[in-house]
């Protein structure tokens, strides 16, 4: 997270760390229900042949390749609130395109239910579209400025950007911002997600219900924190139907 600040422990109990079995974190995710993690498809897919847009099963991670850690706050150190859970299934969006990052969303089913407590709690799925200009929070253990990794979970508060504005910003780079994506960040740059934050939550507060819901998951961008180059996220409202079909969950 570029230009972020340490998150307060327990304020986003749904955040999950995807970590190799050797302890090396590589992505973020969010807890849905008690046994599903939503993350980015590209976290679960190893791009072996850039020229081949088709995702092959053989390119996917296997459930035994990594684990999920819930209730985590420190990036490296562990504490008593952490729950380390194995993976049962990996399901990425059927229309995921690794070259364009379209439909960059994936689901991980845990081998057993998480135990909910003050530091482990799911996030809600969106009831409706996000509003342009709404402030969202993005968090993760990804790289900071000067490529250093943080000690704790970091977060930024940024506004959602008009979709057309974002499209135009990336048009010059020949990068497409499609309807299943949503952008956020400052025009002048600065606050942004970065490598290692992928799959992590972009969330906002539903003031009527007083609940936090997931707006997006960290997906891609051009470099990190650059002026006019907003962070691009996988738009959860767009994928909600698929998520609910696969998980059977509802708010």
């Amino acid at each position, binding site marked *: 997270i570029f230009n972020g600040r340490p998150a307060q422990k327990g*304020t986003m*109990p749904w955040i999950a760390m995807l970590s190799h079995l050797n302890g090396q974190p590589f992505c973020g995710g969010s807890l849905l*229900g008690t046994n599903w993690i939503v993350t980015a498809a590209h976290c679960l897919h190893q791009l072996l042949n850039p020229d081949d847009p088709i995702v092959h099963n053989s390119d996917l991670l296997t459930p035994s390749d990594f684990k999920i850690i819930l209730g985590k706050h420190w990036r490296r150190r562990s504490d008593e609130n952490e729950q380390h859970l194995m993976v049962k299934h990996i399901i990425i969006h059927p229309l995921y395109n690794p070259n364009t990052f379209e439909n960059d969303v994936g689901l991980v089913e845990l081998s057993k239910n998480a135990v*909910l407590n*003050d530091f482990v709690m799911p996030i809600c799925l969106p009831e409706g579209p996000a509003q342009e200009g709404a402030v969202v*929070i993005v968090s993760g253990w990804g790289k900071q400025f000067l490529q250093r990794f943080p000690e704790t979970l970091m977060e930024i508060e940024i506004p959602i950007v008009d979709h057309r504005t974002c499209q135009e910003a990336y048009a010059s780079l020949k990068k497409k911002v499609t309807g299943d994506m949503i952008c956020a960040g400052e025009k002048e740059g600065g606050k942004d997600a970065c490598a290692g934050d992928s799959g992590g939550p972009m969330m906002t507060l539903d003031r009527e219900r007083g609940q936090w819901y997931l707006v997006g998951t960290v997906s891609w961008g051009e470099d990190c924190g650059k002026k006019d180059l907003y962070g691009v996220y996988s738009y959860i409202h767009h994928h909600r139907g698929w998520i609910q079909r696969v998980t059977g969950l509802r708010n």
Partner: protein
Amino acid sequence: LAHTVELNNMFGQLHSPGYPDSYPSDSEVTWNITVPEGFRIKLYFMHFDLESSYLCEYDYVKVETEDQVLATFCGRETTDTEQTPGQEVVRSPGSFMSITFRSDFSNEERFTGFDAHYMAVDVDECTEREDEELSCDHYCHNYIGGYYCSCRFGYLLHTDNRTCRVECSDNLFTQRTGMISSPDFPNPYPKSSECFYTIELEEGFMVSLQFEDIFDIEDHPEVPCPYDYIKIKAGTQVLGPFCGEKPPEPIKTQSHSIQILFHSDNSGENRGWKLSYRAAGNECPVLQPPVQGKIEPLQAKYSFKDQVLVSCDTGYKVLKDNVEMDTFQIECLKDGTWSNKIPTCKIADCRAPAELEHGLVTFSTRNNLTTYKSEIRYSCQQPYYKMLHNISGIYTCSAQGIWMNEVLGRSLPSCLPVCGLPKFSRKLMAR
């Protein structure tokens, strides 16, 4: 000379010897005419001229059957003592007629005798036979040369081809009460019938019979029931025959198997009989309903085969050999004892409520009662779980011994994870 002529044709002619000349004296001719059964003979004269004499003692023509003289003619004109046939037709009652012409030894003058013709004529048995013995029981159908009988629907023509009987040999009664009557009662019962009625009940029952209503069976003033009769067999005991108009007294048998034979011959128009029967077995002791329960039907007396159903008040279960059930049935046995003792009624107990995943249960009574109408409340592990549909979570022990919720019925509630409500709230977000 006397001689006899046998005639068998369906028609023919006959005349005095020498006709149309005068007939000789001292002669006798007999013509025997026989036509087939079902026909009679019609005789008529075209010419008649005989010597006249008092009561035709000289010359005469006599027409007769086997057993009666139909007519004796003589003379030329009908007088008070002689009779000429004139236009009169003589008919035989049956299929035989004999005609004898006789002239004595002298004639005061020449008489030309007679010329007669005969023909066979169908007998319409259906309209002519009045006497009961020979008419059809139900329907009569005449045809040339004979007739036949038929019967109303439901009847069968007896082997006498005249009376109509019914098939009534397989009447089986297995109910504990019933009515039995002669066929078509109270209309006259069919003739030539053998009716069997069997009352077959389980051993242990004893059947009693009582005749009711009309009792009208053909009888005879001197001989006991030679025509129609009822006989009743109860086990080894045989009762009857009964007939006449006075019904037998009520009959209490000691048997569970009764055969009733009703015989009718081929005559008579009697209205028959009707009886009711009832089966009763040994009586069982009177029953007391269990506390908090009832028995149905509640009767002052119970007898063999009676069954009662024991049930309990709402909220209670029948407890029998430590098994709970809604109802329990007992039966009065042949020997007058009940198949089972009356069970007790135990208050319905819903027992320990099922555990709720991610939830817990609290009892509304201090001593954690689980019996009928007790209450418990399911709740979810807050704040992490919440009850689906926000139902009350209150369950009451129903009369069936099942924890019931007014919305979910007997299904348990579901605790769903609460989403988006962290305990640690963050500083307010920037606007």
